[in-house]
Each structure stands twice: as structure tokens, then as C-alpha cells.
């Protein structure tokens, strides 16, 4: 039997069945204030960890590289539905990136980028995911800390 060289479906399914690192489970959302096109202050009150942020961005369960590609030479499968993440830190401030992750639809109502820190306004969310944001406040801060280091 010829084996599939592209693990297409498995990746797609894996993204849906792998449990999130559990910080996102059953928590309430932190309050945040949107000013202009950003959220100026950390959701957790402390800075994130860029190394953990990189690990998260390339992890299937965070879903980023389903759509994005970037400076991740070790990754075999990256998407091309969205801009390359290289140079992100030269284009956007931490505050702008934070809002982009929290709720990109506030910046572009028709975007396909999911809102990572939102639980309302969603339909038929699967039981395993219901009432939880895709990422926790800590995870978002880690990813923001990483993205600002991506300079060209």
C-alpha cells in the first residue's frame, strides 16, 4: 500500500484533538482595555517568556502555523493562508500584537484569524472547547514576547 507523503488530514485533526496545555482550562478572562489599535498592558501584569512563546507558536495545538509560516526552519508543515511572521516585531508594537491575538476581528471584521482570547459570539463550539479561550492570558503574553523579537 502506498503511504501518504502528506500527512494532511492527520495534522488537521491533530489540531482539533490535542489537548491544550491546561492553563486555558476553565478560567475567567482577564479584563483588558483596548486603546486605538492595541492593548497597551500585559494581560497578566507581567511580561511573557519569548522562548515559551516560540515553542507555542510552532505547536499544532496553538493553531498558528496551520495558517502562517515564518522563521521556523525545523518545521516541515506550515500554512500559507496568512502573512509570513518574519519581521512581525518590526511592523507592530507589543500592544498591537496583543490585540491582534486577543481578537483580530476587532481590526478586520472579515478576518479568518481566530480570536484567541474570546469566548462570546461563537456558535456550536465543541464540548471540549466550550467556554474557554483558545489560549490563556499567559500563553498570549509568551507569544507576544516572542513576536516582538522577530525583527528584520
Amino acid at each position, binding site marked *: 500500500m502506498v503511504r501518504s507523503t502528506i500527512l494532511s488530514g492527520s495534522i488537521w485533526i491533530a489540531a482539533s484533538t490535542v489537548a491544550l496545555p491546561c492553563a486555558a482550562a476553565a478560567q475567567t478572562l482577564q479584563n483588558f482595555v483596548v486603546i486605538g489599535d492595541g492593548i497597551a498592558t500585559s494581560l497578566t501584569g507581567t511580561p511573557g517568556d519569548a522562548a515559551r512563546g516560540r515553542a507555542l507558536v510552532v505547536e499544532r495545538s496553538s493553531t498558528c502555523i496551520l495558517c502562517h509560516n515564518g522563521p521556523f526552519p525545523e518545521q516541515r508543515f506550515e500554512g500559507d*493562508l496568512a502573512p509570513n511572521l518574519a519581521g512581525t516585531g518590526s511592523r507592530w508594537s507589543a500592544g498591537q500584537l496583543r490585540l491582534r491575538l486577543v481578537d483580530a476581528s476587532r481590526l478586520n471584521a472579515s478576518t479568518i484569524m481566530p480570536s484567541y482570547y474570546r469566548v462570546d459570539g461563537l456558535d456550536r463550539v465543541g464540548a471540549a472547547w466550550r467556554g*474557554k479561550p483558545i489560549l490563556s492570558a499567559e500563553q498570549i503574553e509568551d507569544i507576544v514576547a516572542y513576536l516582538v523579537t522577530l525583527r528584520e
Partner: protein
Amino acid sequence: MKSIPAIIGAALLVTAGIVAPLLATEIPQGARRSGYSFTAPETQAIQNDDTANPGMLSVLDGASLWKDKAGALSKACADCHHDAGVSMRGVAARYPAFDQALGRPVNLEQRINLCRVRNQQATPLAYESHELLALTAFVAEQSRGVAIETGADPQLEPFITKGRDLFMHRQGQLNLGCTNCHDDNWDKHLAGSAITQGQPTGYPLYRLEWQSLGSLERRLRSCMAGVRAQPYDYGAPELVELELYLMSRARGMPIETPAVRP
């Protein structure tokens, strides 16, 4: 990039009176492509060669089930329908179809089970069971190469509209609609895999990832799970309506059951 031909395609569809209103993002008639054309040459080679295509094993099983007597009436499909090569040619190209008794569309699997219950007095076969997939694949294979014409029956119109609405509707924790991938991004990649147009031309089909034959509903449910939505149950009206919309969206494209996909 797609907008000008899309508007022309939309205009053609509107003139044909199929569905309205249409978004500019819908795939123009001339640009429609089977999932086959997105797969690697080695996958296409398996589909092209009946002796290598694992889906053909199920078709053969279906051919023998076709002749098996079943149920309280001890009747086989063949006792009523005789030679499937004649009686079943073109049938799959018209499904889902309107069932007068139920007053709503049924897909091919449901039609086979309705025949079991009504005409054989047998128990319905379970969704995704080997027997139901084999019989469905056998019936659909009789339509290989036949152009899809699902949706010609005007009674189906409100159900096509519902299916289309669901296709356009965002769902799940990732908040994506089918249209976001299969109308707007079918020339791109989700992680490593090509995003196809989501054409329903090859079902039931053999997926190398599944290592088995699977129905269109199984595929739709995995796309729903992919966006972290609660998939509808097998046989749910919503899935049949989605199937109906997909088939009417694919009108004119040839049936290729049993197809092979990665």
C-alpha cells in the same frame, strides 16, 4: 484575483436560476476542480488503477451484498432492481434526492436504508458500517463519469438554501465557515495539506489517512471537528442539507467513486 470570473460565474448561475443571492467569492463554473487534481501523482495513480484502488474492494463487497437476500421478506436489492449497471446508472449523480414520504431530502446511504426498511423489512445498516459503505460505493460506482445533476428537483430548493447558509456560517472555537477555506482559500495550504474546493465528487472514498473507506458525512464531521465545532450527528438534517448544497454546487462535475484522497 478571483472576483471578476466569480461575478461572471455568479451571473451564469443566477440566470440558470439555481441559487440566489450569490457572493462574489463562489467558485466560477469553469474554475471548479475535483479534490483529485490537488493530490500527488502517486495518489492519483492509485485512484486510476482499479486493481490498486482499495476502494474497489468495497465496491466488490457491495456487488455481493446487492445479491444477498435480507430481512423478513428475504429479498435482495437485485430482486427489485435487477442489473445495477442499468438500474443504478446515474442514480448517485442525483442524490441527495427528495423523499415524498419524509417530505425532505435523503442521501444515498439513507435511501439504501429506506429500501431495507420499506422493501426488505430489514434493520437499517449503521452509518460507516462496512456493509453500508460497500453498498453505497457499489451503487455510486455505477455512476462513474456521469455528470452530477443533484438539485434539479424544485422541491429541494429550500433545503439547498439551508445547506448553503450552513456552508457560509462560521462555527466552532476557531470561528470559521466552510466558505472561508473552500471558496476563498482553495488554492492555498493549511499546514502541509492542500485546501481543496471541498467537491463531493468521489464519495464514499478511500482516505489513506483513514486507511478505510468513508462517507461524505464523515469528511464533513472531521472538518467541523477541525474548527473545534460540535459535529452534527450522522444523518442529521443539517448534514444532509450541506451534502445537498455541495452536490448542487458541483453540478456538471463527473462522479468518481470510489476516489482516493490523502
